[in-house]
């Protein structure tokens, strides 16, 4: 099998640009006459803006504009993917540490910085809410103006939405053992190595916008609405982002930059500093209370989950994070009775948004840890208890949703085998295991266009954002497989709404399935045209012709595609164009508006040692296994799984925002916000996949890349508990936290 085709691991398409430094990220693109933008923010979590004096700033040579809310259409437009709650720039009040109150556009970065420092904001610091308890206090100030939520019974509270899922009646369900605990999941930030980058320029009678955005079409729609321009006059360029992880999904500062471009008549450029990205995006943190009922044989009787997710001052996509993340909180198990209550709780903090795993790692941390504890209390092996309850393929483990779509037991047994579950451990070591599940996209729409050019080379137009996961490569591999062109004869065009047809978004590990299928269908359309061509050329019935694997099969012989294409196009030349669409429509009666296209399922098993004097957790062996349907590019699959696992070690062992008593983030920046380095890896790490071609994507593939992150924290904590006897229910498991838990255990 040629390695260019699906199942092979050809070198990354777009890799050469990345290793030579010629890859152009947004910040590398040079626009003529561009103005540099610098944001003005306040050093407090929440403040009432009394006045903004821009006069001194405007005097700085080279400054063209100091934009504030007063310069925008009134009332200042608001936007957001779920609720239009976020103003383009702060209006009257800043609601989180870092919310911009003004923005300077100047000829140089130096001038913009100097001017930004001279903008005088008179403000009154106000008390800020930055914890679930503070937000839910009946006497708490309201983060969001109730007028933004008319007819909402919760408008007088800081609960943006409350979701209730489940089935049967947990109160009426008996159990031999009930384990009840409270867990916390910290506030962490994406820390993509490429900070968010935005540019805008007037473009004839429209506007052009460059953004590190993962969802260019969604951005286009929002800009079109805010600017009052037709979609066809809003061109969004979305170069491959330097890491997204969900933090670049939704519109942030593009509207501000667009207004500045239109007002100055010049291109403008805003590149955030790393510190500013911490203030722009974060994961939705959570406090989760789980009550798990077990029978004495280890079967689950009920799961009763209450999850309060702390979202930021503006909703972004965080409420969807909460609903979609908590919906499968009961896990990939057979559970007779389930009650899930989850809330998105507003606070004066950085707007929480999507982050790899969405809202699932938070509840999975709690639910899997509880199962670990239940197994111990019942004296049942922690692998065994999971296998006993694991949903079987085809089982409707969540009523009214997609049944279990994989042989998940195979994944679990593989992980157990690789870690050597059940074999003797040296003293001082512990083992932990966790399962995790996440719903893929619940609705979706992707279009693709494929052009087969006269010489057999191919152009694929796909609106997916390749932020490192390798979508470009996989799409090229599909085209290579279907149309027989070698990979270096295939160009994949992405990231330009004027050229590339509509794609809803890049998220939820959806693109291999949704866009992949769209591309497959576009290729199939071309294949149909080739059949027609061959039938015409050779006087054969179309029904007797098959086009596959890059060849055209006639009843009596095989021809290469090019041997049909060239004569078929004739002297005028030309090309064949195929369009493909993959659509997953909403199901209005479904609690999430749609059932899962597929599930990501992962099992992670860990062997760890704990230095009981210092609290250091040493991950000796790490195994992660995912159920992927079909690995279209096995190397990329490995990279995604291992990458997700190591990223998950961040929130598990070291990452968290530290607030001061006024709600300001103290550890902005790379020195005091620690992420895993090359020296923080497990000593031995292995990943494996299960492939049963049982996914809805091309060739039986499923989406993947988030599953491996779901299980990191519960597996590590379970291993720590196994090694030390101590259960820790708050993340991250920093050395100090582990040390404290060990010390408290021995003194209690």
């Amino acid at each position: 099998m040629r390695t260019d085709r699906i199942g092979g691991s050809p070198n990354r398409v777009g890799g050469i640009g990345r290793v030579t430094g010629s890859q152009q990220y947004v910040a590398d693109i040079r626009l003529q006459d561009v103005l540099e933008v610098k944001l003005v923010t306040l050093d407090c979590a929440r403040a009432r803006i009394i006045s903004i004096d821009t006069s001194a700033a405007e005097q700085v040579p080279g400054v063209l504009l100091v934009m504030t809310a007063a310069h925008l259409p009134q009332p200042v437009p608001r936007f957001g993917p779920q609720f239009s709650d976020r103003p383009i720039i702060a209006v009257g009040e800043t609601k989180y540490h870092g919310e911009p109150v003004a923005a300077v556009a100047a000829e140089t970065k130096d001038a913009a910085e100097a001017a930004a420092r001279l903008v005088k904001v008179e403000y009154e610091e106000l008390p800020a809410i930055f914890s679930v308890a503070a937000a839910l206090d009946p006497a708490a100030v309201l983060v969001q103006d109730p007028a933004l939520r008319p007819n909402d019974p919760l408008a007088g509270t800081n609960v943006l939405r409350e979701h209730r899922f489940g089935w049967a009646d947990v109160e009426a369900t008996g159990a031999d053992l009930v384990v009840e605990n409270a867990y916390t999941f910290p506030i962490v930030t994406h820390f993509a190595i490429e900070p968010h980058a935005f540019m805008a320029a007037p473009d004839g009678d429209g506007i052009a916008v460059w953004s590190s955005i993962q969802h260019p079409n969604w951005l286009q729609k929002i800009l079109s609405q805010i600017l009052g321009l037709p979609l066809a006059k809003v061109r969004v360029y979305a170069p491959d982002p330097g890491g997204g992880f969900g933090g670049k999904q939704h519109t942030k500062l593009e509207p501000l930059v667009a207004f500045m471009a239109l007002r100055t008549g010049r291109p403008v450029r805003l590149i955030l500093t790393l510190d500013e990205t911490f203030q722009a995006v974060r994961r939705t943190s959570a406090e989760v209370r789980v009550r798990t009922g077990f029978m004495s044989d280890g079967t689950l009787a009920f799961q009763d989950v209450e999850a309060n997710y702390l979202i930021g001052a503006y909703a972004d996509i965080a409420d969807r994070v909460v609903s979609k993340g908590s919906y499968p909180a009961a896990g990939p198990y057979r559970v007779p009775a389930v009650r899930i209550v989850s809330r998105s709780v507003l606070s004066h903090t950085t707007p929480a948004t999507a982050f790899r795993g969405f809202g699932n790692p938070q509840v999975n941390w709690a639910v899997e840890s509880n199962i670990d504890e239940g197994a111990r209390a019942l004296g049942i092996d922690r692998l065994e208890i999971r296998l006993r309850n694991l949903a079987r393929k085809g089982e409707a483990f969540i009523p009214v949703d997609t049944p279990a779509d994989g042989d998940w037991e195979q994944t679990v047994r593989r992980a157990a085998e690789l870690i050597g579950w059940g074999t003797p451990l040296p003293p001082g070591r512990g083992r932990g295991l966790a399962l995790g599940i996440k719903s893929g996209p619940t609705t979706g729409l992707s279009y693709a266009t494929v052009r087969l050019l006269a010489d057999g080379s191919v152009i694929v137009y796909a609106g997916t954002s390749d932020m490192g996961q390798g979508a470009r490569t996989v799409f090229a591999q599909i085209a290579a497989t279907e149309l027989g062109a070698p990979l270096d004869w295939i160009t994949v065009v992405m990231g330009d709404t004027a050229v590339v047809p509509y794609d809803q978004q890049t998220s939820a590990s959806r693109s291999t399935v949704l866009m992949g299928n769209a591309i497959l269908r576009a290729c199939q359309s071309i294949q149909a045209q080739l059949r027609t061509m061959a039938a015409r050329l050779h006087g054969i019935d179309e029904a007797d012709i098959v086009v596959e694997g890059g060849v055209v099969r006639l009843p009596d012989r095989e021809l290469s595609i090019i041997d049909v294409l060239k004569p078929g196009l004739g002297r005028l030349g030309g090309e064949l164009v195929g369009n493909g669409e993959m659509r997953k429509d909403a199901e209005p009666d479904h609690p999430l508006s749609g059932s899962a296209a597929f599930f990501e399922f992962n099992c992670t098993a860990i062997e760890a040692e704990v230095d009981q004097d210092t609290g250091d957790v040493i991950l000796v062996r790490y195994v992660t296994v995912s159920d992927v349907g079909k690995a279209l590019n096995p190397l990329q699959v490995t990279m995604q799984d291992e990458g997700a696992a190591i990223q998950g070690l961040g929130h598990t062992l070291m990452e968290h925002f530290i607030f001061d008593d006024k709600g300001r983030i103290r550890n902005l920046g790379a020195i005091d916000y620690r992420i895993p380095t090359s020296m923080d890896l497990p000593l031995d790490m292995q990943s494996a996949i299960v492939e049963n071609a049982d996914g809805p994507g091309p060739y039986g593939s499923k989406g993947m890349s988030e599953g491996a992150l779901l299980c990191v924290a519960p597996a590590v904590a379970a291993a720590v508990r196994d090694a030390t006897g101590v259960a820790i229910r708050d993340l991250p498991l920093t050395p100090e936290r582990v040390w404290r838990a060990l010390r408290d255990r021995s003194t209690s």
Partner: protein
Amino acid sequence: MSEMIQTVLIELTVNGRRRALTVAANHTLLDVLRDDLELTGTKECCLVGECGACTVSLDGRIVDSCLVLAVEADRAQVTTVEGLAVDGHVSPLQQAFLDKGAVQCGFCIPGQLVAAHALLAENPHPTVPEIQEGLAGNLCRCACYQQITEAVLATAEGTDR
């Protein structure tokens, strides 16, 4: 007696090419490489010398260019990612990064490559811990660390021939 100056004329060699330019005293080597010399391969991220995205080689040693004032690079030899290719072909190390899947989003990769090149120049046959330590100043959020290490090992093995 040396002068007090706000802008300085510096001469330096970048990727083998002699450059002369006037720089502001408070601009960093990173600023000058990206903005004045239009070598945008070197990236800007943390600006505190933690992430290594701005790594370049300065007189044969890797440094975080965000912490080097441009004026300090006067009369220096600087190598950036753009200077790693040999006769227009990617170097064996660059090829190994591609072959071993060590590249995801790619934003940290220029810094990783410059650091890895320097590591191999010092230590042609590093062990895994030596590679991890040598590249610990280059953060990768996509967490390609294992693949990057394999790429460096593969390149080191290739130099036996």
